[in-house]
């Protein structure tokens, strides 16, 4: 962490050229109190811009995974997301902190949800977005993945949001591009913004992460969401249990700081939050368990299991959910479910990530000039 990163300059407010400095984390409570005094949209914007709580450590040009982030950096993102939540009435207000920035969504793997969320997040901050969806393999197009990315970058792109089926593909981009690279899921490796939004959702519901017990249930082996969750949750002090069929729990995962359980029923009484990972049939080579009914029987979250869990059990699912496999409809739509909150929070977390990366990028460019 460079010393300069500790006191970041505020984002340039295009048009009005308002610049400000803020030391220390914005007092969200003060902010909320003052909220009543501010009514007009223009005044809201000004207030948001002048109170970005970005004095926490960041200093990353790319967001490739949560593994390389510290607990402090993770908290910086979560705090900024929380700030955006309050300041924009849950992300419904449009800001222009990223005005003039071009964000390219480079999706080499289909994903309507994540791409839409990133597009909306970028636009809410005033950035321009361009979507590029390619077939999954670079070879099938005759143009390499890097050449495709370089071509898009040459059109004047500042930030590339990359989804790819190969682990490490965004890392490859980061080595070749001048733009900031944001990993929107690389194969079975990491999905940092999903990890952050899951953690944000838990923190919002409980006010903290430290000391909570979180169970990641299902297809751990093929889940990038699991890996990002593990890195983030463990660093922030949660107890993490991975639970699923033995065929879907990869070797030596305990070295990542988690516990392994093969029985969901056994761990249920201790758990504050279950994150139900989608069974990734498309990534599996052959069958990893005998049948879907058997999976649902052993690892599916149903009303009966909800009743046996803690009364305030949180149920998360990164989606898209397979109703009837990972969870039953009554659970998905029930009072314990935070599934739709996750989607809304995804927008805030992505706004925070885009802001921090742009800020770092501008800081570096300022240093070069």
């Amino acid at each position, binding site marked *: 962490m460079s010393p300069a990163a500790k006191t970041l300059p505020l984002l340039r407010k295009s048009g009005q050229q308002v610049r400000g400095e803020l030391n220390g984390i914005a007092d969200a409570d003060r902010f909320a109190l003052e909220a009543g005094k501010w009514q007009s949209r223009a005044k809201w914007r000004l207030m948001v811009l002048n109170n970005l709580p970005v004095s926490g450590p960041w200093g990353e040009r790319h967001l490739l995974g949560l593994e390389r982030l510290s607990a402090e950096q993770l908290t910086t993102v979560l705090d900024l997301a929380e700030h955006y939540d309050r300041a924009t009435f849950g992300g419904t207000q449009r800001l222009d902190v990223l005005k003039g920035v071009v964000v390219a969504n480079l999706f080499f793997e289909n994903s309507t949800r994540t791409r839409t969320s990133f597009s909306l997040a970028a636009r809410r901050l005033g950035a321009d977005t361009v979507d590029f969806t390619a077939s999954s393999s670079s070879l099938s197009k005759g143009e390499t993945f890097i050449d495709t990315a370089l071509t898009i970058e040459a059109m004047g792109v500042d930030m590339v949001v990359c989804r790819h*089926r190969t*682990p*490490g593909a965004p890392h490859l981009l980061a080595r070749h591009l001048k733009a900031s690279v944001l990993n929107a899921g*690389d194969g079975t490796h990491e999905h940092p913004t999903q990890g952050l939004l899951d953690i944000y959702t838990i923190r919002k519901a409980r006010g903290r992460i430290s000391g909570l017990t979180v169970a990641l249930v299902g297809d751990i082996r093929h889940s*990038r969401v699991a890996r990002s969750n593990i890195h983030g949750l463990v660093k922030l002090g949660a107890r993490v249990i991975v639970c699923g069929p033995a065929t879907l729990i990869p*070797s030596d995962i305990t070295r990542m700081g988690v516990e392994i359980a093969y029985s969901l029923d056994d761990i249920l009484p201790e758990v504050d939050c279950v994150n139900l990972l989608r069974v990734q049939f498309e990534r599996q*080579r052959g069958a990893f368990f005998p049948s879907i009914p058997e999976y649902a029987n052993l690892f599916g979250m149903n009303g009966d299991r909800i009743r046996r869990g803690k009364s305030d059990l949180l149920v998360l699912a990164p989606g898209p959910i397979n109703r009837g496999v990972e969870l039953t409809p009554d659970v998905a739509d029930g009072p314990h479910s935070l599934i739709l909150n996750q989607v809304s929070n995804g927008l805030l977390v992505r706004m925070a990530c885009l802001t921090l990366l742009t800020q770092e990028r501008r800081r570096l460019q300022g240093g070069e000039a």
Partner: protein
Amino acid sequence: MSRKLIRGGRVIDPANGIDAIADVWIQDGGIDAITSVREESDADIDWRDTEIINASGKIVCPGFIDTHVSLREPGYEEDESTATGTAAALAGGFTTIAAQSDTCPVVDNRSAAEFIRLQAERARNCRVYPLGAVTKESKGEELAEIGQLVQGGAIGFSDAKSPVANSEVMRRALEYTRMFNRPILHFAMVPELSEGGVIHEGFQATRLGLRGIPAAAQDIMTGRDIALAELTGGRVHLMCVTTADSVERIRRAQAAGIAVTADVTPHHLLLTDEVMDSFDTMYKCNPPLRSAEHVQALIAGLKDGTLSAITADHQPLAFEKKQVELDIAPFGICGIETLLPVCVKALIEPGHLTWSELISRLTVGPAAVLGLKHGTLSTGQPADVTVIDPEEQWTVKASEFRSRSRNTPFDGKVFTGRVVMTLVDGEIRYQKGVSVPCS
């Protein structure tokens, strides 16, 4: 009549138990004698017409032998040709190589084997012996024309990186090759367990979300090959052993008198799977880089002779083939020119092997696998000699490779120990810093 004297070097000839400061005399392309260091004042020597090569401070040893080198010609000339591959071999200190059969078309017939020999003669670099395919097109289904391949010069049989998965086919191949006293060089890997894998299965694979190739995939096939060698009396040589359990199985089989030998690569001795968190395709090789405990077992196996040969497992690949995503990038390291310095770093510097032991694994070991007489400095042998500067510190520059390809993870890395001269039949075919155009 031509005469050369390689003077005053540390002559290491493991086959004859020599490790001393000495002179090596070469007459008409053959080793004439190894003598104590002679002075020019010595009157009993006729110094006229003697070309003197000063090897003071250098190691003088038999030329290295590699049991399997991928020369990629015909079919993959974008990666390598016989001329560039053999030039690279010379630069790596190799005077004899066995050419892998994985060309296109595959070397599964006599004329294909003869083409390899013809191209090697044209290149006039190092000695090249073709390996023939075990099965037609290396598909693992029907035996190739092994007898005719022998007539065409095949020194052994291998389906390169395609395992002969069908045990019945492997059994017949081992029985059939016995007639010709040729080994089968097998890549022991269970295809169902390794399919789609890019990295050693273990913590790093889990952490990075990369599909793993378990050690068991190699161990199971190693065990099967040993059982079939015992059953048939055929000779099996296991290429690129990378796991602790495989080493132990081979050790026990050798103790029981079963005809099994094995080799290991320098990169599997120096690197572990931890380097994969760079997601750099240059590290992607098959078998994958393993974890530290496997590396320790490989070094122990090399030291006690269970692994009798070191191979570069030279897999040249054109630049663009590696500039892609990790899962679709091909396996392989272009390694023959960096074998010695990597071995020095992995084996000599930590004190695992003596120079004599290392050179033995590069000469007599592989010579025995292939049934060759090369690999010694015995009087009357062709003067295939490698001169090494064991102290030279240098930076590997892939751009200066003689190989057509540059796919090395060692580019820009600093090493100690370098091949400075390579002679074949008493002729200087490689000299550091002297560029020789490919003929």
